[in-house]
């Protein structure tokens, strides 16, 4: 009474094919948890990139939006330290709706050779980076801001300072002297003093010339180009023959200054 293999298999198939058994509740719980985990991982990625963008924007904002407080402090800084490029160090908190706010950027000539050394230092750290991103720009640029050599002066219009030429022997020029009153705190030399109002929106767009990043100025140009799409950037550096960067153009709102040639230093 033997059985063919086929029949044998059929018995199993017929009886087991529709076999059902209730699994325990923890199976669904496990599925649920795993699906959650996977979707959370998926969801994190976009948030990470958003966070990164915010950091980049914030740092750009800190660099280029004029700051209204800390005037006194930085003013003193100028007095004490050897004169250098002073870059406006604005803070994000600056309310854009307050147009009266003005910032002064003073580029002060060095009696010795102060800035140069400073920027070179930065150059070295920045240059090797293969892909200088905005993030790098943020950290690297942040450094000089902490240094006392770099000073930022921001004030209300009423207390606008005047660049004076007190240092003997140093050839100084005041390039732009829009509407300001006699200063009460700044007494040290300033080559260029600028009054600016906060920028709200870029008006025209122009693609900047692409070039490599060789020094601090290029780095600033890069970041500015990212933030400021106008033809005339808020800040523009150019290389001079000593391969040093010089601030050659400033364009903040109504105030536009462009240094065409290398003038006095």
């Amino acid at each position, binding site marked *: 009474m033997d*059985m063919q293999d086929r029949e044998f298999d059929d018995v199993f198939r017929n009886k087991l094919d*529709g076999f059902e058994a209730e699994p325990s509740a923890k199976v669904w719980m496990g599925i649920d948890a795993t699906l959650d985990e996977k979707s959370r991982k998926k969801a994190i990625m976009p948030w990470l990139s958003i966070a990164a963008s915010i950091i980049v924007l914030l740092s750009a904002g800190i660099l280029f939006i004029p700051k209204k407080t800390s005037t006194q402090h930085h003013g003193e800084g100028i007095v004490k330290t050897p004169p250098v490029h002073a870059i406006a160090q604005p803070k994000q908190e600056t309310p854009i709706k307050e147009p009266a706010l003005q910032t002064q950027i003073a580029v002060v000539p060095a009696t010795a050779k102060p800035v140069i050394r400073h920027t070179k230092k930065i150059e070295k750290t920045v240059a090797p980076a293969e892909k200088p991103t905005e993030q790098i720009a943020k950290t690297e640029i942040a450094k000089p801001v902490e240094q006392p050599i770099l000073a930022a002066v921001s004030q209300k219009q009423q207390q606008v300072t005047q660049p004076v030429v007190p240092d003997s022997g140093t050839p100084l020029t005041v390039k732009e002297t829009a509407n300001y009153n006699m200063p009460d705190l700044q007494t040290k030399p300033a080559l260029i003093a600028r009054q600016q109002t906060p920028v709200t929106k870029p008006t025209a767009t122009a693609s900047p010339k692409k070039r490599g990043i060789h020094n601090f100025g290029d780095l600033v140009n890069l970041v500015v180009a990212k933030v400021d799409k106008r033809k005339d950037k808020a800040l523009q550096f150019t290389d001079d023959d000593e391969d040093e960067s010089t601030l050659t153009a400033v364009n903040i709102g109504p105030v536009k200054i462009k240094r065409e040639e290398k003038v006095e230093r």
Partner: protein
Amino acid sequence: MMFLEHNYTIDELVKRCKAGERKSQELLYKQFASKMMGVCLRYATDRMEAEDMLQNGFIRVFQKMGDFRGEGSFEGWVRRIMVHSSIEYYRKHHKMMQVVEESEMDEQGVNPVAVANLGAKELMVLIQKLSPGYRMVFNLYAIEGYSHKEIAAIVGITEGASKSQLSRARTILKEQIGKTEGKKYGYAG
């Protein structure tokens, strides 16, 4: 929760699951869980293993939901995923291919009535007692209806190995049935 649960067609549920709706995924799970548990049990040694396979299988079902184009039945698609998930489970957890060469067993004659009298649960127990390699091939061939060629591809063995494991599996099962039969009718009388 009177959420028209029973009025959802499978197609609607599938659509919602593709959109990642968790509630629909749960409904779909409930719809198929018991049936698929039945599939996984055949490939497992016990309930615990079967539940692991079921869980992995359903996770894969939901992740690959977008691949289901509506060709063939959805249940058939889910079942294939369960089978693959079960085989995958053994790939990960066991060295299933270590086929123990047992001493030659005699082809045993089995009373068809005895086999037919066995309930589904008893047959399930018999299958679960097989070593994983035999169990897998027997399941794939006898119950799922795959050819030896397909089995060879799925499991990763040669066709010859698939054939010999199938015949071994049958022999062992028959032997076991013979023993049960003996107990039932021979001694207990």
